[in-house]
């Protein structure tokens, strides 16, 4: 089934390729079938033919070229003279050489270039990282607070005071057992008199070899 729209889409290409080629046999058949498309094609061909003709006419005559070449040569020589006059000094030459070196490109396979790039980037990263670590002031680690319950055995020393009562020859109880207002003053006086020799009175005392202790278990609260 002939489709004019589709045929005309490929006509431009066929015309620019100077007519249907072997590959365009189908197009040639289409053109034979459709007069309108054939007319379109012929019109396009004529446009190009006319354009070709005009361009051929526009080309200069043979006599033009020697003059053209002479002018070109003069221009090249003028340019060469300019370059000579502006020839760089030794310093300038080295600068030019350096610029040339910088601009020089070396074809490198893409995988190799990628690997090199990654390597360089990683090297730079780690170098910078290492420098930062060495330059950094060692930071004092903040004191860490760890709560730990430790049972510490507490040794409680208990001072056991033993009260020792000693019967003295002049027993005070004997004195106090018969109190009388008349003799109270006398008894007090007698006690005072009695205390004086009491400090020296323990000289002959011998404590028992074993102390009998009674330990009552309980917290300090129980002691209240």
């Amino acid at each position, binding site marked *: 089934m002939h489709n004019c729209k589709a045929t005309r889409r490929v006509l*431009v290409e066929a*015309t*620019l390729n100077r007519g249907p080629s072997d590959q365009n046999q189908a197009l040639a058949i289409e053109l034979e079938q459709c007069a309108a498309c054939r*007319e379109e094609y*012929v*019109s*396009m061909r*004529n*446009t*190009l033919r*006319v*354009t070709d*003709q*005009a*361009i051929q*006419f*526009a*080309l*200069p005559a043979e006599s033009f*070229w020697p003059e*053209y*070449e002479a*002018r*070109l*040569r003069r*221009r*090249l*020589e003028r*340019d*060469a003279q300019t370059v000579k006059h502006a020839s760089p000094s030794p310093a300038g030459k080295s600068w030019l050489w350096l610029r040339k070196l910088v601009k020089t490109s070396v074809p490198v396979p893409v995988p190799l270039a990628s690997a090199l790039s990654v390597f360089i980037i990683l090297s730079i990263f780690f170098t910078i990282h290492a420098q930062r670590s060495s330059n950094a002031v060692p930071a004092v680690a903040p004191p860490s607070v760890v709560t730990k319950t430790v049972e510490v055995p507490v040794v409680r020393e208990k001072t056991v005071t033993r009260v020792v009562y000693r019967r003295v020859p002049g027993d005070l109880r004997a004195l106090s057992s018969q109190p009388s207002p008349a003799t109270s003053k006398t008894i007090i006086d007698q006690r005072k008199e009695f205390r004086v020799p009491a400090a020296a009175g323990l000289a002959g005392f011998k404590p028992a070899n074993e102390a009998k202790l009674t330990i009552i278990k309980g917290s300090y609260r129980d002691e209240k």
Partner: protein
Amino acid sequence: MPMADRDEDLILRAQAADMDAFCLLAKRYERRIYSLALNYCQNPQDAEDLSQEAWLKAYQAIVTFRGESSFYTWIRKITINCFLNSERAKFSRWGNQTGGSLDDLIERDKELISAGSETTLHNRILFARVMDAMSELTPRQRLIFLLKYHEGMTYEEIATAIDCSTGTAKKAVARAFAKLREQLQVDLQANDCVPCAAGQY
């Protein structure tokens, strides 16, 4: 072909600052480059300036030529770059250079008619009309059309040369072609005489 005449030898000599060798190279391709320039800028004087500028740049850069493509492909690339750079400058149209319209052109060529050079006059009119039609295209459309039609480049090559997509190149060619047809008004009965075919003369 003698060894000295091969492009490769001439290029080597030119790279060693041998201007004669470079001029020999230029002589081989100057017509094609000039023709391309003439069709692009539509003015013989501008075409000469543009083509010679391209040759000058090629001479300055000949040491960088590595032989990865043919010499013509290389010089054509330089020429295309010159075209693209010159897009900023407005090239005068054929009409401006010839002093006006086609009527002026015919007036000035009356001598040719009287001398029996009708073919020359006809061709001049034809050329003027084609150039007029080409001037209706944008410089970029014109360049793409020329590269496709005259240089026979593929769309991929054109896209690479002028830094655009292949789709853009295809569209530009189609539009340029349509504009040319519209301007030239060539019909089925057209013969060599476009002005007659257009019914104007």
